[in-house]
């Protein structure tokens, strides 16, 4: 293994872990908001896919990566608003609607892509990176870590913003209460429905941006079904992080490294079939669940619709 750990391999692995990890990070952070507020968001895979599609389309039509991310947020929020309507307001089964939204987003984006591009897959130009002075000069991993597209820094900064929000603000407390004891939140004069709606929409927007990152920065193209379980991995991250954003970051980097192992190994001159490598992140997820699944924690009111006055 010693010969594997060359500079080129390390650079490529770190770079890949970041690029593949950011969508997982955004999805995981988003899912965490929903789960804190008591909504198990199985539809997040669909929200990511809608974000990937609209994010790609916006970036492709306007040529602006930022409009691409805005499109991604819009796509994710659109799917999320359906979830708000049906799961938060009407109180329908979150799992059934989650499956439905994922299926629908898969079908619709595939059809939309077909009608617009038929069987072609137009490619976006590479994304500009932002080098952080001094830090990007660090040997070996400096440029891989600190010469990245700006969205990478924003996503990592979001981890700490959310950590602050959960710990020190009323909004964070409201979210927590909506998942732990919604009736208490209601009694305190805060609308559970509004808190949860906000949470699900935030999830949709973040997952959508994650999807847009996947399409615009990661791949540079949109392919139907391209999220390939990234949203579901986000759910696992949120479950294992036990409400702490920084653990989502660690998990996202770990699974991101697994996802990007193909390129890194090819750089190192080892040729492993893509399909074998594609199994890695899911093997990692299952291994982590076997090891720590018991310690995952979820809010008591997760998955239970809040009906005012109902016992």
């Amino acid at each position, binding site marked *: 293994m010693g010969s594997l750990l060359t500079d080129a391999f390390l650079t490529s692995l770190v770079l890949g872990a970041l690029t593949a990890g950011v969508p997982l990070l955004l999805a995981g952070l988003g899912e965490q908001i929903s789960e804190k507020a008591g909504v198990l968001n199985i539809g997040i895979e669909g929200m990511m896919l809608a974000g990937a599609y609209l994010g790609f389309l916006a970036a492709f039509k306007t040529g602006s990566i930022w409009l691409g991310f805005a499109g991604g947020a819009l796509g994710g929020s659109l799917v999320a608003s359906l979830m708000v309507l049906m799961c938060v307001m009407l109180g329908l089964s979150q799992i059934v609607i989650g499956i439905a939204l994922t299926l629908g987003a898969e079908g619709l984006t595939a059809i939309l892509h077909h009608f617009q591009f038929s069987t072609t897959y137009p490619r976006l130009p590479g994304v500009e990176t932002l080098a952080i002075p001094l830090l990007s000069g660090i040997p070996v991993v400096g440029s891989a870590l600190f010469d990245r597209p700006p969205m990478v820094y924003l996503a990592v900064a979001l981890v700490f913003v959310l950590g602050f929000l959960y710990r020190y603000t009323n909004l964070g407390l409201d979210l927590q209460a909506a998942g732990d004891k919604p009736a208490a939140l209601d009694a305190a004069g805060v609308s559970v429905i509004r808190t949860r709606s906000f949470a699900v929409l935030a999830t949709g927007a973040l997952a959508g941006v994650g999807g847009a990152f996947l399409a615009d920065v990661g791949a540079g193209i949109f392919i139907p079904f391209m999220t390939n*379980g990234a949203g579901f991995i986000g759910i696992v991250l949120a479950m294992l992080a036990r409400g702490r954003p920084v653990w989502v970051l660690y998990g996202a980097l770990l699974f991101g490294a697994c996802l990007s192992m193909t390129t890194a190994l090819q750089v190192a001159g080892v040729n492993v079939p893509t399909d074998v490598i594609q199994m890695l992140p899911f093997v990692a997820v*299952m291994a982590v669940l076997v090891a720590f699944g*018991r310690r995952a924690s979820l809010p*008591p009111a*997760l998955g239970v619709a809040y009906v005012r006055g109902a016992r």
Partner: protein
Amino acid sequence: MTVDTLETPVEAQPGPPGRTGLLRTVAMTLGPVLAALAVSGAILLAFGVDPLEYYQAVLRRGLYSPSGIQETFTRMAPLLLLAASLIVAFRAGIWNLGGDGQFLLAAVIVAAAAPTLVAVMPAWAALTLCLLLGALVGAAWSLLPALLRAYQGVNEIITTLMMTFLGVSLANVLVKLVFLDPATTVPQTRTLPVADRLPKLFGTRISGGVVIGLVAVIAVHLVMTRTAFGLKLRVVGANTRAAIHAGLPVPRLMMAVFALSAALAGLAGAVEILGVEGNVRADWNPAFGLTVVPLVFLARFNGFAAIAFVFLFSVLSIGGESAARLLDVPNFFTLVVASVLLMLLAVAEYVGHRHRERTRA
């Protein structure tokens, strides 16, 4: 992980007896179906496709044409087995969403074993052995989620989905690297000769697999509704805590549910290979799994009703393939229909529930 708070698929509530009850059931069932077709039609219209023309094309191929209807019946085989798989799981309160992985891996293993087995034993023995093998592979692929759910309380929705992604990749690895047919240039397993496949029904081209599917779904229905074993599973599904207090061996029953459900999904894969495909090509994945979920909910977990809805969906599925070519609508449209159907079904349940409460008050 707190398991009890996570919502499990609840037992369908039987409507009030008598004619109004029957009428309500019919309305609650046909309403969402018609509404889903209308909403999906509106989506087609938005794409500039005439929905009436599309649905006509679907019916012309999937229902009215002699060869199409035979394909429809053949398509029912794997869907019925997947429906049976979901009925076992949902009635017992287990979300086995890993059907696609269980289906695909069983299909690949069976496709690899079948040509070898027919060479050394009579065809009927080889086919029986292959069906058992498929069921076994399916069950094996659910072992990890089952253990995690039964003994660690880890949410099975996530683990079964993860195992599906893993299974799809593993199936590809097996096809491309292990079971590759050296005689062809495209990566695929060796092909089971047509003569050795599941027998066709009465001189038609309908695969005998549909009989296996019908038997399975009816057997599952009877076991779940008419036997003590089924009652135990339903108690676990309705209220896990009560089941523990009643002294039921809940973890072991959960393991049994996973094994049964996944074995049926594996059997579906075996039937599709032995009856229709004959081999597995690289990257082949029909992904029937999640589209069967709305059908099973629509049937209120009733096996007989599931047969009817599987038939309708098979018409849509087979007809959709031909309509896709005629009208240039990708076949992913069936995903949209399944999605809209699931949502409207949930809305219909909500409206029905509100209506019952209001009439009671």
